[in-house]
């Protein structure tokens, strides 16, 4: 019956200190430790869990980018995905790639692969956009269950508990649908060595955005990237009078 598409993004590891390139066009990525976006790990875990519970037959991991993203796809395969798709994007196209282009690619793939679900992480930790899932659903005209903290499949519908500002919201949407994973959806399993070795035998198909009829032209131009301003040191004062005097001198009051 069903096939699920899972998107995985290769991002700079969250513990690494980012450095802005001297020409301020972006951040230094060469040689920097990268790993799978944490929310994508949660998405993969959910897809694999659904397969283990026999709601779906096949999980396909998809990533867009240069050759290095195949490592990320391999990790997804080691976690339990059946096969992978590597959409090759490199150079200037890769630097300009954003949610609009990705969602177009995913929409095209979802139709091509006849997927019943597209599961993505809610956002990537490098751009923090939180747009790809929503755009993909719109392009496909599919319902969307975003910020999912619980997913239950019931026949042809999906019950999604969403994390929202006010608390939790439970919705029922019909398949095919797009889901985006939030932090508390599950705890991703480790990609253990025997599974990495087995994953080397799983297939990763290669294709280009043009093969899917997607144009990668960006509507956004990055003008400049800056480091956040250095935080000024705080000042300790001894008495309330001192505090008032300092605030007055500051122009705050």
């Amino acid at each position, binding site marked *: 019956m069903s096939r699920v598409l899972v998107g995985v993004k290769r991002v700079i590891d969250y513990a690494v200190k980012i450095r802005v390139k001297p020409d301020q066009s972006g951040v230094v990525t060469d040689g920097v430790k990268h790993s799978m976006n944490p929310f994508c790990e949660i998405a993969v875990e959910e897809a694999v869990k659904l397969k283990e519970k026999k709601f779906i037959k096949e999980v396909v991991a998809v990533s867009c980018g240069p050759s290095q993203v195949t490592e990320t796809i391999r990790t997804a395969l080691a976690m339990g995905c059946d096969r992978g798709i590597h959409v090759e994007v490199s150079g200037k196209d890769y630097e300009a790639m954003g949610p609009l282009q990705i969602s177009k690619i995913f929409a095209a793939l979802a139709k091509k692969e006849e997927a019943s679900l597209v599961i993505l992480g809610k956002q990537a930790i490098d751009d923090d956009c939180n747009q790809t899932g929503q755009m993909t659903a719109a392009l496909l005209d599919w319902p969307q269950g975003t910020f999912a903290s619980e997913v239950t499949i019931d026949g042809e519908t999906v019950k999604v508990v969403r994390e929202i500002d006010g608390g939790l919201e439970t919705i029922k949407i019909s398949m095919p649908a797009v889901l985006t994973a939030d932090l508390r959806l599950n*705890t991703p399993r480790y990609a*253990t060595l025997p599974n990495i070795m087995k994953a080397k035998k799983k297939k990763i198909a290669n294709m280009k955005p043009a093969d899917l009829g997607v144009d990668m032209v960006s509507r956004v131009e990055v003008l400049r990237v800056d480091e956040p301003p250095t935080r000024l040191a705080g000042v300790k004062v001894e008495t309330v009078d001192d505090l008032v005097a300092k605030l007055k001198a500051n122009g705050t009051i």
Partner: protein
Amino acid sequence: MLIHTMFPASRYSIQAQRCIRALKTVKADHAPPQLYTWRWKCSSAVTPRITSHYTICPRDKDPRWEGVEMERFADEADVVIVGGGPAGLSAAIRLKQLANEQEKDLRVCLVEKASQIGAHTLSGACLEPSALNELFSDWKERGAPLNTPVTEDVFSLLTKKYRIPVPMLPGLPMNNHGNYIVRLGHFVRWLGEQAEELGVEIYPGYAAAEVLFHEDGSVKGIATNDVGIAKDGSPKDVFERGMELHAKVTLFGEGCHGHLAKQLYRQFNLRENCEPQTYAIGLKEVWLIDEKKWRPGRVEHSVGWPLNRNTYGGSFLYHLNEGEPLVALGFVVGLDYTNPYLSPFREFQRWKHHPFIAKTLEGGNRIAYGARALNEGGYQCLPKVTFPGGMLIGCSPGFMNVPKIKGTHTAMKSGMLAAEAIFPKVTAKDLASETAGLHVPEYEDNLKKSWIWKELYSVRNIRPSFHNYFGLYGGMVYTGVFYWILRGKEPWTLKHAGLDSAQLRPAKECTAIEYPKPDGKLSFDLLSSVALSGTNHEGDQPPHLTLKDDSVPVANNLAIYDGPEQRFCPAGVYEYVPLETGEGMRLQINAQNCVHCKTCDIKDPSQNINWVVPEGSGGPAYNGM
């Protein structure tokens, strides 16, 4: 019941006891788990529990592990290599080169604890290309990142304000003519790519946690780390056993003071005829400096200030030539120092303020930080390197040429020699071996006939010559007279001072050192430095800095030596904090900060700390260090 064990009745009045009991009930939900004593043998009744790792608290009697599947998946290879550094990768490459030349099939698997090859590599470094030329005569065409030939070599003796230049005569060990300044992490990454092209199976992110043995006692292979164990030692839902990799021969290239090597020394008695290894800690930073101050190819070394004449150590500052005005600089302190108040990190930070150094760094930006222990023992400390089923390569046994300040070329050569000795034996149709794991003593014979041995023999007396009343000056005189003239041909062999951990004098006999506060421009505080190393570990796992006895740090290290681990750890892992209940201190281990330098395992005066490998892919994220 637990409360009574911590506060025996005789020490407190009834009211006080009621107070404490009430406080405990109120704080019960918020108190960290360490406060509750656990009836294990691994902590005394009064000390909060620190260590929960299974190497100290075994799982077979632990009720939380009952019924957990402990079976491991196993796979066979011809050769398994532990460690993806220069030695391990050179051995793997050489094995595959031989296999391809002779059209034989050979499965070589390499496991590395870092998330990517090169991420845990840290070195100065000035590379002598001798071993590389032997491994790949066409390394230039292959794109090896040796972009900075050494153009200037400067040696200084620093005093607090001034600098005395020391002539770099040809023939002195640290003369760098013909060498290259490299970012070793990038070089190792390149070696990894070459190895993969040749067909080596490389598995970064998987640490070798256990040595496996055949029934006859020979080495069978290794097992990778288990994953999914919670901080208190219990299994999580995602728990999975590591994997076993069996091999005919296992090469251990863990680098300086490897944790598996430590076990192997004991198991096979490999150190019975050599002196205990001595070490130093090297701290390093990479700076983007003002272009006007940039002199690509310039190598600067210094000794003297801020260390006193009896503390071995010195600095390096190399100008790289890779497009950006980068300098790699660092400070090395011998771990045989005697004053427990010495902080290698703070010596490093204060050294940068010396006018000769500060003038290069002013206006620049620090972009990387890291630290690693290195070998100082040389020839006198070389153990037996082969045993049934395996062998030791690289900085693990320790082939570093200390006065030359280079160990990469000898590490690579040792890996290549190991490969050349193993190859005929693993591919032989008839595995003529007395033991199930292959014993290849030819490796040790080949080492002794190679230039590694000659080199290490000739410089064997330089480091021990520092152990005299005049310390540094005595050592420099010795080097100038005996090495420069005699090239190590003198008939005597000086001894080192013994175990580094035994060198500390009690705190009351020493004076505390007043270090200047970091200014945030040239010198920095410890925590911001650790953040730059990109180090991280999964938080919910047992601390991998295990203590054989949880009560020893406060009872011994703090009481007698004022807790030297707070100062020698370059990552702020060890902190003595007041007990939440008021009286006394406890040791807090911030395992997530660890940069895998191994200094604590080496320098702990109680030798109570046993560094074991954390879950794979944890640790620093160095980029070209």
